Structure formats: structure tokens, C-alpha cells
């Protein structure tokens, strides 16, 4: 199981990366893709949609189950990754390269409330 140190995480298995323009890239963790199995369908939010923290905004369907992905913090969607819609298996191949959407956070300080790699690892181990 891969948990890169430089990223932030949520208990619902999203990873979050702060980009140079201040936007947050969001994807699902390697652990999450492994639990879901091969992904076959991804439905992303509309660009411009305003999201509350922990609001469900992505539907992932795998060979096994359907799962929601949640907004890690409040903000608005500034970009979505159409490449994962065309080829959902990218998420299985490299979960940290296959970002799902980018969020302009309502409050940049919210990022600090998320889990670091060690805390995320501890959260998985406790499950």
C-alpha cells in the first residue's frame, strides 16, 4: 500500500495535493482503489459546482461496488480530469497520478485540518 508523504488525506480515502496556483487536486488513495477493485465507470462533478466539505461529488463504479468520493474541504470545482472518465483503469494503475477534480478551496487554511500520511496510515490500520 502506497501513501506518499507529501500529500494530505481524509478518512474517506481521498488524497489531496496543493498545486502551485492554490488549487487542490483530489483523487482516491491506493488503498481505496485496491478495496474497490478494477474501476469501470467514473462520474465527475460539473466545473463551477460549489461543494461543502464532505459533500459527495464523484461516483466511482468498480467491478465490485459503487462508491462515492467526497469533497475534502469546501470550495468550488475548477477542473475535472476527463482522462479518468475515458479510462477509469488509470486509477487502478496509479491512484496518485489519476486526479479526479481540482477544487479552489473556500478557505486555504482548511487544508491543515486534513490527515498527514502517518495519520492516514493509522486510520486505515484502525479499520
Amino acid at each position, binding site marked *: 500500500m502506497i501513501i506518499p508523504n507529501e500529500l494530505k488525506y481524509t478518512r474517506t480515502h481521498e488524497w489531496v495535493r496543493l498545486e502551485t496556483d492554490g488549487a487542490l487536486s483530489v483523487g482516491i488513495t491506493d488503498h481505496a482503489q485496491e478495496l474497490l*477493485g*478494477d474501476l*469501470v*465507470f467514473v462520474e465527475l462533478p460539473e466545473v463551477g459546482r460549489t461543494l461543502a466539505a464532505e459533500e459527495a461529488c464523484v461516483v466511482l*463504479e468498480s*467491478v*465490485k461496488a*459503487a462508491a462515492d468520493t467526497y469533497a475534502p474541504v469546501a470550495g468550488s470545482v475548477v477542473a475535472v480530469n476527463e482522462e479518468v472518465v475515458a479510462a477509469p483503469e488509470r486509477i487502478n494503475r496509479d491512484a496518485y497520478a489519476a486526479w479526479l477534480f481540482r477544487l479552489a478551496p473556500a478557505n486555504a487554511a482548511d487544508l491543515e485540518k486534513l490527515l498527514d500520511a502517518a495519520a492516514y496510515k493509522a486510520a486505515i490500520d484502525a479499520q
Partner: protein
Amino acid sequence: MLKTTVLNAAHRALHARMVDFGGWEMPVNYGSQIEEHHAVRRDAGMFDVSHMCAVDATGPEIKTFLRRLLANDVGKLRTPGKALYSAMLNESGGVVDDMIVYRLDDAHYRVVINAGTTDKDLAWMSARLEDWRLAAILTPLKGEREAGMIAVQGPNARERVWAALPEIRGLTENLPPFFGVPVSTSAYGELFVATTGYTGENGFELTLVAARTEKLWNALLSANIKPCGLGARDTLRLEAGMNLYGQDMDEETSPLDAGMAWCTDLASDRDFVGKGALLAQGRRHAFLGLKLLEKGVLRAHQKVRMPQGEGEITSGGFSPTLKVAIALARLPLGVAVGDRAEVEIRGKWLPVEVVRPPFIRHGKAVGAK
């Protein structure tokens, strides 16, 4: 405590993801379920099916017993080795289990029943045997007689098996579909080699003593047969339009409402358990396939609606071969192939087309131009 098959250590050595399947710890995949699925459609894959229970059914009155017990007629099995698929019903016409029966000779049949229903099935069969006072013996290949079973499936399955077991080629080369024969010349001792399967592809199901099963598994791996988990087995059987016990039918379901009328012998004079109930009830539902016309995945228990009434998906999933979602569904009578319906997926009603299963046979889409 989960039960394990004789291949448990072999699965772990291959880094399989193990899951609880009806009380058995089984591999769901060894990495990618979709790659395993494609291996069976395009090349050759193998499954550990040792959790299923083979039962040797013997004795002078065994044929009489099976003809009274099962909805399909083992009397149709004229050639030694020929197999048939049948439901075993309760008195109300519900399906106790589905199974494959091979006729070895008039006093010896081999029956293969599902893993999750083994105890219930054996109790049911033994009770009927006692009621009817027939001279027959049921011997499950478990415990001291433990058997291992490996299903090798795919267009190249037979050639790969012969590469690993060249000594069985002569005896199995001309084996027609849906046959099973004992082969005593193999390097692994006596093998039962069958041309049955659960994927819609050709192949062999190999049964042998538990102690030699891992060695055979490793020889098959060396012959480039890809290990495949229960995840791929499920999408393969769904594409092949084959029912899964406990999902598409159970003790509350009539075989006539589960697409099993073709193997339910109501026309002849033969009486069997559940026949009276089926004749009284008739057919109450249609059982057909669905293809999703938009993006998404069909899943078991989703609701179906159409002008004729409502229905329910019994098995659904994403078809890796067709790259669309497909399903088997219990639907109102009067629905026809080609009809449109709607399925509720996460609160939205999405359009589906009613189709006749199977979706895939021998790697090809059925009905495709």
C-alpha cells in the same frame, strides 16, 4: 473460522486477494479481475473450484433415485460420461440447489453441488433416500476422500492442459462438450476430466485427490494458464447467461421463473419432487437479460420498471467483453426481447434494453452482426 481449499497456500503465494465466499476463504482476484476475465475469453485461465462438492452417487437403484430427486431427467444420459445440468427442488417447487450430474455407468453417477449449499443438499438427498428406501449410496468427496478441482477455461485451455499433461491428450482429445471421464494414465494419479464449465468457453474441469492438487496447479501455471479469481468467474458466467445459486434463484424461486424451464422436465410422465407444485403454479415471471444503454453499472436488487409492471435485477455487473453493464432480471410476464425498460441506479432511472441471454459465447457477442 473460514474453510480453506487444498490450494489456499498456492493462492497466497500468488498474492491473491482472499474473501469469504459462503464460508470459504477464496481468491477474488490475483491483481486485476478484468485482466483475468480477458485471459479466459482470449487465451486460458484457471479457477480453484475445490470448494464445490463432488458426490459419488452409486448403487443399483441410483438412477431411480436421481430421476425422482431432480427436475431434469438423468434418463436422458444414454452415453457413459454424458452430463446434464439440473435443479433439485423442494415440495413447493423452490430450488434447493443446481448441479451437474455425470453418468459414469448405470450404477454410478457423479454429482457436483455448490459449496455454500453442500451440507443442506446432502441432508436433503439423504432424507429423500431414506424416505424412498432405495438401494443407493451417496459419498461426498470430502474429508478422507477430499478431492481438489481446477477449472481451466478459454480458447487455448485444452492445448495448455495437454502441454502440462501430455499423457491425457489421447483420451480427452475427442471428448464432446458436457462430458466427464475418469483418466487413469496421468502423472497425478486418477483424474476426472470434464468438458463442463461456468464461463461459456471450452476447457477442462480436472478433479483429483487433494494431495496432488497443488502440484497440478503449479504445472498448469508453468503451462501459462493464468490464475483467475471468483470475481472474474462471476462476470464470465454472467456474460454466459448462467445462473448463480442464492442470487438468481433460491428455495423461494421456481425454476420456471429463473430461466430454468429448459432443464425442467414437465412434459414427460416422470414424477419428481416439486413437479406438482410447478404444474399448479405455472410460470409467474419472465427471466431475461438487460443491457444498460447509458453509463453506469447494473447491480443485483436494482428495481426495473416497464409498462408491463415491475421487476428486479438478480445478477448484474459490468461486462468486460461488451464494455457495458449487463444483468439477469426477473421481469413481469409479457415482456419481450427488444423491449425498453428502466432501472433505478442510485436514485436515477436509466434506460435498458431487454435481451435474451447469453450475452457472450466462445468469446463473441451473441446476436452481434
